[in-house]
Structure formats: structure tokens, C-alpha cells
């Protein structure tokens, strides 16, 4: 093959694709041809790079020059400067918040340099649609090692020893799960990859699949080998991830074509195959029993787990289900050994599999933080390091208020706990949970009552309706929260919320209901004052709960800065704004629907919200 001198690695994850990374690739190739550089420069589309907030992203190798916010129209200039004249272009480089000097190299940018990559080791390095790229980065070596030099028991022992715990939420030790499934008698067993975890704000699974689908497939094959009697596997993917579904289908087909799935893999007598199934937009299908019901062509309703799915799961056969990130960790553990893995993280898992959190965890950092994106960090790192070092702090110089982890099943962690080391057990102790790793950062402009209401509405919508505590309980909780945000709350409501929460936690059928009250419980615990301000003073300190706000116009700003421009009047959908052109405008509070359009359109900051 050609000895290229430069490779342009352009991100083709969902975020960057929506900002035209494929169009950019086309123009890049056109420009490269124009300058007759096609024998020197090669354009590669990679999976999600992780720094999604700054997309589209391109990294120029071998020097690791990092470009962000690229536009199609920038490309001719970029090619001319960087590729022809050899001058990296400063204006497309990353500039840290509050600084002016750009950082040219990717590995010097704190967002990247603060990370430890295990599950994401191939991100930005391979084209996910080429199995050769994965193999050239050491792919399918773990499988080769397992099939030729290890017995299934030895593989299981290694995974157990590594202390790997399920990356999907609960943190159940993976090795223990595999072992239980292995011990149950049966000659037809299944492994499943759960790619249907729909915690809002958690996009690591999508990113891993889009960027490195073969690592998940390799992990599943190894799991099937270790558990034994597993010849069939399923990957169940959320339908909200069209690109991930496409990449999984391509990867599975390539693995089949190359004999890595199918009969007699690597000429051994081990046989295993995988099918990809699309979800249908039900959050509850991230729950294992609901997911299995859906694979069998039924509505995704969970069942009570008196008998675990490792005993009776899919088609009543023993079934081992792990999530995307867990499977992606397996090949690395096999290759590098359990001791390497236990060297990262917290606690001690030598005797107790629940004794610590080992390895790394991928978090998706989003919300009011400067660097939104995917970060993989060692377990035990503090929230402060994640939010302020890797994440670059809070947007627009606002005050940090809380981090929400674990999605609708998790909770809020206030500023006072920002030095908390992040692992399974610490998060549970403060009332939240790891979940699949979503981290949504909130600032002073987010109202905690509104956030709690948001999550309750979510669980209410997604409750499958099978059991009463979840179906009715979350509805009543939502009603109470709605009342509070409308200014009709009473102080007793707070106690009632707690009582209802405890009842739902105790008596729900599955984890969706059992964890649904967590956002309410943690916000009540850490932000009770804010609830009380809503209830007693009928005010929303963060200025979010609309019924509690009044909009008015600052006459001075309106006249002096804006010269009574009248844009607010023109845009008001309720016809609630009056005023002559070039004169001060007024809001009729009786007519005002509090939509906030005037606030958005006023360029002079003349609209005040109280």
C-alpha cells in the first residue's frame, strides 16, 4: 500500500455527521486531488471522537493536530495551508475557556490528556467500517488467545479476578454473572448485548458502537466461549441510534465473512453467531426481562425476577446479558490480564467481587459544561476533576450547582460533594447511582424542582403500566411536582412526596419503578430550601418555573440601548406588548403567556424576568 505521509482523521459519529463531516470529507478529497497530494494524504472517517461539543472534528496525524468546528467552506484554505504549505491553521484549533492561545496538539488538550482509554482505545484511530483497521490495532487477538491457549474455565477465572462490574448501571460483577449462567444446566444458552440503555444524556454506548463495533462483538464471542453451550447471541440496539445499527450490521457481516462468527471459528470446534435486533422506542426495554420479551416479539414488559435471567431468560434458556461497555472491556482484560485491570480503580476485589470498582468508566459529560463529550477516566477520580479539568468548568462563567448521574434512576449530587470519588459504591451512598454513565452538569439557572419534574414525567411516560406502584405512583408524584412549579404547592407536599417515593421504591416490580423516585429524593435531600421557596414564597430562584415568573421591560435599556425597536412587540405571540416605535414598550401582564420569546429576541437585554 501507499506510504502516505499524512492521515486526516475526520470524525463520523452522529454529532459530527449532523454537522456535515461527510460533506467535509468529500471536499477534502477533492482539494487533495486538486493539489495532486492523493499519494501523500489519506482521509479516514473514524467513529465518535468524544469531543462532541466541538464538532466536526478532524485530527491530522502523525502530528496529532486537532481541528474543531470545521465548515465545508474552510476546507480549501485548510488544505492549502496545512497540507501544501505545511502550516497548521491556528484559527481552527482548540482554545481553552478564558484563554487566548490555541493548543495545536490533541494530546495536550486537557479534555483528552486527562483520560485513560480502555473501552474507547480505538476511538478516532480506526475506520469502524473496516475490520482490517480493528485487526491492525490488535483486534481479535484476545479471541485467538482464548481459543488456542485458554480453557473456558480459565477465561472465566480471569474475568472474575479482574473485578469487572457491569457498566450498565447496577454494577453487578460480570464474572459472577457469567459463572452463574455457566453453572445452570442447559445445552442452549444465550449471550445478549444490551445496547438499549436509554438513560437520557448517556451516549457512551452509541459512541462505542459507532466507533469500535468489533470490540463489542469480540467481547461477546469470548463470553460465549467462557460460559459454554452458547451458540447464539443477540445485540439489541435502540432505534434512536440509526448510525449505530448500521455499523453493527456491517461489523457482524464482516465478522461472518471472515469466519470470526459462524461455525468452527479459527478452525476450532467452537461455533457462535450473532443477530442484531432493533429496539422500538421503549425505555423499559433497557431492563433485561423486558428486553428479552421484545426480542421474542412481545411488548417489552418486565417480569418479576424471582428466577433470574441467568437461569431462565431468552426462550426460558439461561441467558447472560451485559451492556455495550462491559463487552468492549473484555478483549482488553483477556489480552493484558486481570492484574493490569485491577491496577486501575478503587478498592480490593481479591476476595469480594463487590469490594471495589476496577478499571475505567466512560462518562458522557453534557449540560452546562464547557467541553461536552465522552470521557473515559479511572474509577475513583473525583467529580471535580471530571467537571473542572476534563470538562473545562461551567459555561459562561456561571456557578456550578449540581451533577445529575444515572439518568432517571439516579440522583443529583450537589456542589458540596464535588470532591466525591466516583465509583459504584460512593455514588450509591449519596443517593445516586452510576447508571450507564450519564453526567449532566447543572448551573445556577437550572431549577431542581423543574429537573425532578422532568424526570418524573419521563418515568411516567415510560412506565410500562404492568404494576400499580410505578404506574399510579409516579403519576401522583408528577402531579404534586407540577402543582409546586405552578405555585400551588403546600409544605405538606414535600412529606407526601417522600412517603410516596419510599412506597414506590419498596413495591415496584422492576428497577425502572424502583429507582424512579431517586431524582425527587436526592433533590429534596440536598435542595429542600429551593422546594420551600417555591411552596412558601411562590418564587423560582433559578427563574425556570414559568408560572412563578413575571416579565417586564426595563424602560431605560429599551429606550437608550434599543431605541424602542419594537422587535419584541412584533414577535409576541400573545399580543401582550404595546408601544410606539422609538418609544418605551410595555408588557401587559394579564395577557402575557410567559413564553419568553421577547427575552430571546431582545438584543439589548431590556426584558427582565423576576
Amino acid at each position: 500500500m501507499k506510504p502516505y505521509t499524512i492521515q486526516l482523521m475526520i470524525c463520523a459519529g452522529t454529532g459530527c455527521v449532523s454537522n456535515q463531516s461527510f460533506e467535509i470529507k468529500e471536499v477534502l478529497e477533492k482539494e487533495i486531488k486538486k493539489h495532486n497530494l492523493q499519494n501523500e494524504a489519506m482521509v479516514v472517517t473514524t467513529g465518535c471522537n468524544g469531543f462532541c461539543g466541538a464538532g466536526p472534528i478532524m485530527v491530522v496525524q502523525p502530528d496529532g493536530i486537532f481541528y474543531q468546528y470545521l465548515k465545508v467552506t474552510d476546507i480549501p484554505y485548510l488544505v492549502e495551508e496545512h497540507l501544501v504549505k505545511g502550516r497548521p491553521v491556528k484559527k481552527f484549533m482548540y482554545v481553552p475557556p478564558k484563554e487566548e492561545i490555541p493548543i495545536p496538539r490533541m494530546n495536550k488538550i486537557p479534555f483528552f490528556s486527562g483520560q485513560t482509554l480502555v473501552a474507547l482505545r480505538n476511538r478516532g484511530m480506526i475506520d469502524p467500517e473496516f475490520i482490517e483497521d480493528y485487526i491492525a490495532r490488535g483486534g481479535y487477538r484476545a479471541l485467538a488467545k482464548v481459543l488456542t491457549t485458554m480453557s473456558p474455565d480459565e477465561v472465566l477465572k480471569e474475568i472474575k479476578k479482574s473485578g469487572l462490574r457491569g457498566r450498565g448501571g447496577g454494577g453487578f460483577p460480570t464474572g459472577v454473572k457469567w459463572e452463574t449462567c455457566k453453572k445452570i444446566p442447559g445445552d442452549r444458552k444465550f449471550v445478549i448485548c444490551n445496547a438499549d440503555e436509554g438513560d437520557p444524556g448517556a451516549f457512551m454506548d452509541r459512541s462505542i458502537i459507532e466507533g469500535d463495533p468489533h470490540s463489542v462483538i469480540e467481547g461477546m464471542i469470548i463470553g460465549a466461549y467462557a460460559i459454554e453451550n452458547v451458540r447464539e447471541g443477540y445485540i439489541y440496539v435502540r432505534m434512536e441510534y440509526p448510525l449505530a445499527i448500521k455499523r453493527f450490521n456491517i461489523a457482524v457481516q464482516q465478522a461472518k465473512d471472515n469466519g470470526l462468527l459462524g461455525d468452527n471459528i479459527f478452525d476450532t470446534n467452537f461455533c457462535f453467531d450473532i443477530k442484531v435486533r432493533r429496539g422500538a422506542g421503549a425505555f423499559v426495554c433497557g431492563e433485561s426481562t423486558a428486553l428479552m420479551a421484545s426480542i421474542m416479539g412481545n411488548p417489552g414488559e418486565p417480569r418479576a425476577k424471582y428466577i433470574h435471567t441467568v437461569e431462565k431468560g431468552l426462550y426460558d434458556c439461561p441467558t447472560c446479558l451485559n451492556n455495550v461497555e462491559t463487552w468492549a472491556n473484555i478483549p482488553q482484560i483477556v489480552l493484558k490480564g486481570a492484574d493490569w485491570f485491577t491496577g486501575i480503580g478503587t478498592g480490593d476485589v481479591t476476595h469480594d467481587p463487590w469490594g471495589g470498582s476496577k478499571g475505567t468508566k466512560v462518562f458522557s459529560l453534557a449540560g452546562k459544561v464547557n467541553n461536552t463529550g465522552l470521557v473515559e477516566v479511572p474509577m475513583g477520580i473525583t467529580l471535580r476533576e471530571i467537571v473542572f479539568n476534563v470538562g473545562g468548568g461551567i459555561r459562561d462563567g456561571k456557578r456550578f450547582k449540581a451533577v445529575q448521574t444515572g439518568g432517571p434512576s439516579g440522583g443529583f449530587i450537589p456542589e458540596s460533594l464535588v470532591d466525591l470519588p466516583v465509583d459504584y459504591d460512593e455514588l450509591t451512598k449519596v443517593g445516586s447511582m452510576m447508571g450507564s454513565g450519564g453526567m449532566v452538569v447543572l448551573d445556577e439557572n437550572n431549577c431542581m424542582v423543574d429537573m425532578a419534574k422532568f424526570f418524573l414525567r419521563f418515568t411516567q411516560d415510560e412506565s410500562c403500566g404492568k404494576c400499580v406502584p410505578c404506574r399510579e405512583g409516579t403519576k401522583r408524584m408528577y402531579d404534586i411536582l407540577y402543582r409546586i412549579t405552578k405555585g400551588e404547592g403546600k409544605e405538606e407536599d414535600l412529606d407526601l412526596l417522600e412517603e410516596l417515593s419510599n412506597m414506590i421504591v419498596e413495591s415496584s416490580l422492576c428497577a425502572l419503578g424502583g429507582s424512579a423516585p431517586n431524582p425527587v429524593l436526592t433533590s429534596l435531600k440536598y435542595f429542600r430550601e429551593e422546594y420551600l421557596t417555591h411552596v412558601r414564597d411562590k418564587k423560582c430562584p433559578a427563574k425556570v418555573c414559568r408560572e412563578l415568573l413575571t416579565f417586564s421591560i426595563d424602560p431605560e435599556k429599551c429606550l437608550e440601548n434599543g431605541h424602542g425597536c419594537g422587535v419584541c412587540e412584533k414577535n409576541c405571540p400573545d399580543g401582550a406588548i404595546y408601544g410606539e416605535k422609538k418609544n418605551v414598550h410595555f408588557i401587559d401582564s394579564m395577557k402575557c403567556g410567559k413564553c419568553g420569546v421577547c427575552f430571546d429576541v431582545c438584543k439589548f437585554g431590556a426584558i427582565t424576568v423576576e
Partner: protein
Amino acid sequence: MSSETQNKAKEISEKWDNNPENIIEMMHDIQDEYKYLPREVIESLSNESNVPVSKILNIATFYNAFSLKPKGKHKICVCMGTPCHTLGAARVAEALERELKIKMGETTPDLKYSLEETRCLSACGLAPVVVIGEDLYGPATVPNIPKLLKKYEKK
């Protein structure tokens, strides 16, 4: 019952081995084809795959992916994930309601646009996110909505 719908149902059912367990995948294909599940096709599919109509309807109403009513030519989805919510998705949704003069979940009378909420699309770096057809936009802001819709006016 027209032969066209019958053929389509047959083709899709065969693609999934006429296996009743694959009914959800079959329904996905029909939804992709017609943008909703027409009654006629449901009945044909039931014949082909041996899954009772009642069960197909049960699945169709359980999952968000399926619709029993025709949808607009351009389906507009507002992401309701947490990061989008914290960055103002609700206001973006209202702006769309105002522009299109329909409520969330409705379709314009000329069948041009449908407006829906969707679960987290995991494009949180671009929050708040709006998807029109297959195009994803973000960050979507209230003042930008009219301009965004203009792109689809003639399509």
C-alpha cells in the same frame, strides 16, 4: 384489500422468515415504508406471519416507534433528553408549536409536518437537538426555528 399492500406485507414477512418472533422487525420495515402502519397492511401482515391483528396492535401501541395514524411528510422530533432539557428544549418545542400552529404529537392539516417529542438521541454535545426527517440540527435556538423550517417549505 389491494394487491400492492398484500405484496408488500408478503415481501417483508418473507424477509424475516415468516417467523412470528420477528414481528417487531417486520413492523419496523412497514413503518419505514409507509411512515405509519396502515390498517390494510396490518391485516395482510397478520395473514402472512400468523400473528393475530390484536397482538400487532398491542405491540404498535406499546412501543413509541409505531404509529397507527398517517404522519406528515416531514417528521419533526424535539429531543427530550436531560441535557437538551437543561439547555431549553421545552422552549424550542413551544417555538415549533407556534410556527407550525399545531400541538406536540399532532400533524399539520396539509400532512406536511408532524411534531413529536423523542427520547434522548445521544447527540448531547449539540443540545438542544431537533431532528427533521433524517437531518439532525443542534444547538437549536428559539430565534432560529423559522429559518430552520424554511429549508423544508419547498421540499
